[in-house]
């Protein structure tokens, strides 16, 4: 007992205090609050809120939009994460080399990251606009009539995935580039002396050394695939007929367009559980297989 209250441990607790307060005030308390909201029927105006039990969670089961957004979000995640990470690695390898105009290319790769998502969406809205948009104008040059990218449920989600990759890849590239610069050139020379080909060197030396970075990026990518919905406000509003709707946007609409705080809270709890389970898997499962220096 006296261990906890020893002078030194109090000193330690005091050092932790600012971080702990911030974490509790802005992370754990809102999380608990969200859970409590989700089991209450939020009173609107004159009605007071009352205990609702699992009603909001039962509604999840019968809400067709909820099912759609879950599937869409899975497709969105699977579509954006591997490609944007692969692309980021490729771009990083390119601009890690020495060639004329390297900083210009680096800047070009990084530019989409600097732009806010809303601005990006506004740009891409005019890319995707049928007939007068950039993509359709290019296709028309070759005599092809482009589809109605954002107006067709079959193409809208892919169109948004492409845009998200364009936006994300440059950001991830920076991390790879930083990691590549820390890898000692001696390794490359040694591999050369041993007669290892470029591909072999990449597969056996470079890529394993980049694994910690890949883990970090993949966690970020997973979070982003659930977090990035700004573009939906501009591009599709989740339409047509929910074909591009994502979980977070559905939460937003439930909370602020339908004013159903209780159900929105239940949806938020689901989102938290999804993200938490991803983080657990990534940290405890993949972490063991990664070589840290």
């Amino acid at each position, binding site marked *: 007992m006296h261990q906890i209250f020893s002078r030194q441990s109090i000193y330690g607790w005091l050092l932790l205090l600012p971080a702990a307060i911030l974490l509790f005030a802005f992370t754990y308390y809102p999380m608990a609050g969200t859970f409590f909201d989700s089991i209450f029927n939020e009173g609107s105006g004159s009605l007071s809120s009352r205990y609702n039990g699992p009603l909001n969670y039962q509604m999840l089961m019968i809400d067709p939009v909820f099912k759609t957004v879950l599937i869409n979000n899975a497709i969105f995640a699977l579509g954006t994460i591997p490609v944007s990470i692969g692309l980021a690695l490729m771009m990083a390898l390119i601009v890690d080399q020495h060639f004329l105009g390297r900083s210009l290319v680096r800047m070009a790769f990084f530019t989409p990251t600097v732009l806010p998502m809303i601005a990006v969406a506004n740009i891409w*809205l005019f890319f995707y606009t049928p*007939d*007068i948009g950039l993509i359709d104008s290019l296709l028309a040059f070759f005599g092809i009539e482009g589809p109605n990218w954002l107006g*067709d449920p079959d193409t809208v989600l892919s169109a948004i995935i492409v845009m998200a990759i364009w936006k994300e890849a440059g950001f991830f590239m920076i991390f790879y580039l930083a990691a590549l610069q820390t890898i000692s050139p001696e390794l490359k020379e040694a591999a050369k002396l041993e007669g290892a080909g470029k591909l072999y060197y990449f597969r056996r030396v470079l890529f394993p050394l980049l694994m910690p970075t890949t883990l970090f990026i993949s966690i970020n990518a997973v979070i982003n695939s659930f977090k990035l919905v700004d573009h939906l406000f501009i591009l599709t509003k989740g339409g047509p*007929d929910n074909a591009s709707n994502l979980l977070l946007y559905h939460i937003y609409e439930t909370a602020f367009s339908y004013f159903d705080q209780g159900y929105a809270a239940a949806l938020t709890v689901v989102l938290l559980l999804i993200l938490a389970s991803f983080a657990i898997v990534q940290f405890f499962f993949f972490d063991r297989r990664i070589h840290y220096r």
Partner: protein
Amino acid sequence: MFAKMKRLFLITAAAVCLAATQAAAAQTELTMYYPVAVGGPLTKVVDGMVEDFMKENPDIKVNAIYAGNYNDARIKALAAMKSGKPAQLSVMFSIDIYELINQDAIVAFDDVVETDDEKKWLDSFYPTLMENGKTDGKTWGIPFQRSTIVMYYNKDAFRAAGLDPEKPPATWEELVSMGKKLTKADGSQWGAMIPSTGYPYWMFGALTMQNGEVLMNDSGNTTYFDKPGVVEALQFWKDLGSKHKIMPEGTIEWGTLRQNFLEGKTAMMWHSTGNLTAVKKGAKFDFGVAMLPAQKRRGTPTGGGNFYIFKNSTPEEKKASVKLIRFMTSPERSAEWSVKTGYMGVSPAAYETSILKDYVSGFPYAAVARDQLEYATAELSTHQTGRVRKLLDDSIQSALTGRSTPEEALTNAQKQAAMLLKKYQ
């Protein structure tokens, strides 16, 4: 030296604070949110009008805050209310009325106005524009940035297709037959475009009314989505793309439609009158504005934003708010607003002012929206309006993109809407 400066700074700061509180005591301070839903520099127009008001009424200070689109404005206003720092008045979507009443956020104007003069003012607006502002015999919203849907058409394209540019289609049949002549086989020009993102239910309100139906009852607790006439209207909308081929299939983006029209990609578009001034400035060709065509009758929903006064404000603030709203909706101001934006004058008196009379005589299309008012109906507005609207939006988009038939889509929407509205009946 340093201490001296610090003291000087403190004294100045205190003086500034004191001056500020004194000024505030003498003034009534109002915070007002307003949304902008169409393109163009509308914020400048609103800010200019508010400044004029403050010049005339030095005892009232107004903070007019641009709050994004209609959804954003409502969210900001309600969030401000919950955080205990409410605005006193706001321009919000006319169809938010039931939601705002259910949230106990607003007061009826009948309970705020005092003098006979003010009561008379409540009756000075176009009755059709008041439909979305009244329920249970009380007035909750005062029309401000109000619109109807009109048809913009490219007269040059009409001439090129051998059509009379002064005779835009007046019926659905003519819309189809003229549309076919205006559609070019290589896809470089479509006959017509009706936007189906953003506010699909609004456009649909026009089509249903033209087919002799409305979408909901006056108390906002029953919808009629699955009536045969309503299904027919959606079938017609879909047919424009899939059968008659005068409109692109799939959904058509609300936000970029004006650009499509200005670049000559479509010969006709249905859009808010709020776009009129922007089209007038942007069109490099001869264009016309017409009422929407008729099937059984002509028809359009009204649209746009109303003034609301929030409950959570002092009597002085409410009084000042009424003063401000009266100023903003006075015939002269309403006329000025209409000229600068294309939104309609909200009262008959506005069209009697010299500003609007001169403008209309030089540019007759400015009066199309007003002339169409006699055929207009309320915009879709019910209890749980966000959810009900989304149900209808989804079913329209699902039919237009061919995921389900109009009948399936609308029956489904009606079923779910009936479930949501049960407790309000």
